[in-house]
């Protein structure tokens, strides 16, 4: 075909394309030209807004319960610690294995070298198994603090018996009854509130009561360490019985109310904290604070999980509601989206950082009714590492479990 014919064809194709565009515009106009209604007044919009706002709050609570429902039956340890230097809480570092995509989670086969609790047996990364003392309640979280010493949290089914045990050489040497679970920092510091209202921290070389009169407050994060006796160590608490804002108590006992902060989502060892903030304007934002100083204020994404190096956050749409997020975002500290995980007609049940560069998530595809476990790198590269496999349905409790260990 010579150039002249080619040009004529291009021109004719372009004219044809424009003609079809015109047809489409005309047809769209025709379809809606008789629609002139304005069905909603301010009251109906405002009423809907109030329901959305309430639902977002409930959604957050349900998400927490769903995570517990998956994690607890498999006795998966807390996902915010590290597994180096003998410390054995699973970390957002390298995956060794991960995944049995066959739900329900309690039937999942734990990876051979993973750290997990199975009844009263604590399996360590090096393959050894430590027998925890028998107790009426079940251990659900544990961290190794030095040679032969373990700090573990146990509870029974109805939560009436909860305690943090300090175990040395297989024997409980100290036990602290609590109202809620313990939190473990990246550095291995453990923090919890005793049934008497003491905020206590335990680390490898010491323990301290940071504050008193905090009964019915729940610890949500701890930063700093390896010791919790200075200002760098901060324990974040949320009130369960009052509308008071969360509070940060440092290693010297100084308490700082986190004004306008509704909840603390995550914290790094270096003191970067992700929060949900009530703007007082009928909307929530998700802000980052570095040692108490705001470093990012934005209202587009809920910054659920901070990367281990604190350079990125794993976010979800702050407007989203329903069974789970349909899209995940990796956001940098300027609030810019670095990569987007959008599997289409799907929702994500659990999601976290695998290492500094990679997120991992369980995905339910509505179209195929299949669960899978997928990862995404900072450059947007997506990999399916398990599944797709049929589960018990769309319910989060049928999601596969994954283990992230160091």
């Amino acid at each position, binding site marked *: 075909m010579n150039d002249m014919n080619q040009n004529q064809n291009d021109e004719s194709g372009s004219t*044809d*394309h424009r*003609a*079809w*565009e*015109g*047809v*489409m*515009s005309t*047809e*769209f*106009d*025709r*379809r*809606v*030209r*008789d*629609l*002139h*209604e*304005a*069905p*909603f*007044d*301010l009251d*109906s*919009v*405002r009423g*809907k*807004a109030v*329901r*959305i*706002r309430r639902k977002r709050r409930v959604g957050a609570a349900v998400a927490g319960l769903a995570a517990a429902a998956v994690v607890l039956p498999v006795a998966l340890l807390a996902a915010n610690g590290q597994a180096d230097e003998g410390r054995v809480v699973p970390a957002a570092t390298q995956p060794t294995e991960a995944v049995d995509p066959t739900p329900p989670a309690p039937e999942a086969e734990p990876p051979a070298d993973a750290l997990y609790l199975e009844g009263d047996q604590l399996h360590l990364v090096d393959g050894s198994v430590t027998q925890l003392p028998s107790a009426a309640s079940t251990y659900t979280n544990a961290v190794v603090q030095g040679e032969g010493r373990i700090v573990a949290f146990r509870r029974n089914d109805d939560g009436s018996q909860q305690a943090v045990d300090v175990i040395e050489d297989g024997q409980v040497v100290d036990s602290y009854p609590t109202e809620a679970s313990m939190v473990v920092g990246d550095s291995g510091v453990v923090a919890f509130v005793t049934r008497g209202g003491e905020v206590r921290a335990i680390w490898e070389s010491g323990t301290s009561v940071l504050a008193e009169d905090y009964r019915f407050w729940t610890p949500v994060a701890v930063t700093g360490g390896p010791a919790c006796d200075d200002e760098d160590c901060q324990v974040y608490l949320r009130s369960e019985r*009052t*509308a*008071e*804002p969360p509070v940060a108590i440092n290693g010297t006992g100084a308490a700082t109310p986190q004004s*306008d902060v*509704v909840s603390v989502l995550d914290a790094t060892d270096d003191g970067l904290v992700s929060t949900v903030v*009530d*703007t*007082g*304007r*009928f*909307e929530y934002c998700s802000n980052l604070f570095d040692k108490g100083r705001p470093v990012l204020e934005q*209202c587009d994404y809920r910054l659920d999980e901070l990367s281990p190096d604190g350079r990125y956050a794993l976010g979800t*749409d702050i*407007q*989203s509601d*329903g*069974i789970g997020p*349909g899209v995940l975002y990796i956001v940098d500290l300027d609030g810019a989206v670095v990569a*987007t995980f959008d599997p*289409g*007609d*799907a*929702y994500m049940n659990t999601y976290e950082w695998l290492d500094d560069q990679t997120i991992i998530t369980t995905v339910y595809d*509505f179209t195929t009714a299949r669960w899978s476990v997928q990862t995404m790198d900072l450059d947007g590269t997506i990999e399916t590492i398990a599944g797709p496999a049929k589960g018990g349905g769309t319910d989060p409790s049928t999601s596969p479990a994954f283990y992230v260990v160091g």
Partner: protein
Amino acid sequence: MAHPRGRPEPETGGMSKESKRERKDAEFTAYLHARQPSLLRTAYLLTGDRHVAEDVLQTSLAKLYLAWDKVRDRDSVDAYLRRIMVNENNSLWRRGWKRREHTTEVLPEGDPHHDQHDEGQGAALWDVVQSLPPKARAVLVLRYYEQLSEAETADVLGISTGTVKSQCSRAIASLRQRVPVDLHPGGGR
């Protein structure tokens, strides 16, 4: 979040919280009056269903109301709402909402226009549009109804201009295939 009793009200630039709320409501009411019919038309084209369109519009307006103070540039409110409507429709589709059937005894007032032309080119075109997934359909609505540029459409949908182009080309290719030749623009010449 409810603030503890006795806590001072935050500074609001000299305007009380009540006054701010009244001003917001007045502005929002004016916006509803001015723009709602047009927004309903866009919602209908995005969803293809009058009931779903109203649901999407109401939810989107509610989310706009929640974020009203954040949208400081009032000229960009339509763009902001369009983005919410598109996301809301995608979200409904994800949740399988659209797969539910709606039954009604009475044809809703102001039902979209139908005429003889619908039996041919228009009906075929609408069938093609209806068969598209919501994101592809949104590309066509924003480009050919809202008359947004490729870049503007890409911005609203959070996709590349290349994807906008390819979605449009694919839709037109489908139209060429599915519309009888004698109903093509220019009579199929």
